[in-house]
């Protein structure tokens, strides 16, 4: 039996044409979002399961490193949503959009749309980071 793990990883690394980076980014952003989501549900559930722990966790959310992580997570979530919309829309309604030329032009739109939708997150979450995380603009 061939070593399937090696085959899979080689398939991930080697460029396999249009959409390969979008596919890789979709998996990376999806896995990151899954880890974040699990932690998010677990930490939020402490409001009922262990309320005193929630107050402690809120202090962790104010840590500048965690706040930078949240800004990066925001990009992953936005990208996953924009690219996921393209996948679901093409698969369910317009299979012909999977043609090479359509995919090529769509990818540019996906990355640009994701970046533009990420800008409010950079501005607002970045401002919060500088203010309450690092003490700029009269924050503590």
């Amino acid at each position, binding site marked *: 039996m061939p070593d*399937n*793990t090696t085959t*899979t990883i080689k398939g991930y690394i080697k460029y396999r044409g249009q959409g390969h980076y979008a596919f890789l980014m979709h*998996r990376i952003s*999806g*896995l990151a*979002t*899954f880890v974040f*989501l*699990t932690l998010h*549900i*677990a930490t*939020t*559930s*402490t*409001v*009922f*399961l262990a*309320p*005193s722990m*929630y*107050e402690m966790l*809120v202090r962790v*959310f*104010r840590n500048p490193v965690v*706040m930078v992580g*949240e800004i990066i997570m*925001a990009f992953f*979530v936005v990208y996953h*949503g924009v690219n*996921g*919309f393209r*996948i*679901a829309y093409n*698969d*369910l309604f317009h299979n012909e959009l999977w043609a090479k030329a359509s995919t090529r032009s769509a990818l540019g739109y996906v990355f640009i749309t994701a970046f533009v939708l990420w800008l*409010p*997150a950079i501005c*607002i*979450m970045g401002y*919060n980071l500088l203010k*309450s*995380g690092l003490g700029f603009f009269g924050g503590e």
Partner: protein
Amino acid sequence: MIADNPRVQGSRSIETYSWKWMRLSAFFLIPLVWFHSIIQALITGGGNLSLEYVQTRWMFLGWRIYDIFLLAFAFSHGISGLRQVLFDFIKSAHWRSVTNWALLAFWLLITFIGAIAIIGGVRMPG
């Protein structure tokens, strides 16, 4: 391997439902996550969270229903997606079965603790 498995043949297999579920839940998740993130991460801000904040928010039944939907759609979508990624690496029928059961248990556990908090609400200490 896959072709030999009668469970994945035909259009009514579990794999077909999983495939459709990923795409249909995506359409629900995009607006659900969008509004949740804008309100919680941008307007409120993670640093302003507190027990009082969550308690006030959950006084409105609509937000609890919203959060139940978000929990159900997002976590099942995540578990199903993780399963797709893992199955790229796990090929043997035995380990795929183990993976399925482990993911099912993890899905039920996290969904349960999330749901119990949304239903039970905030328990103020003291």
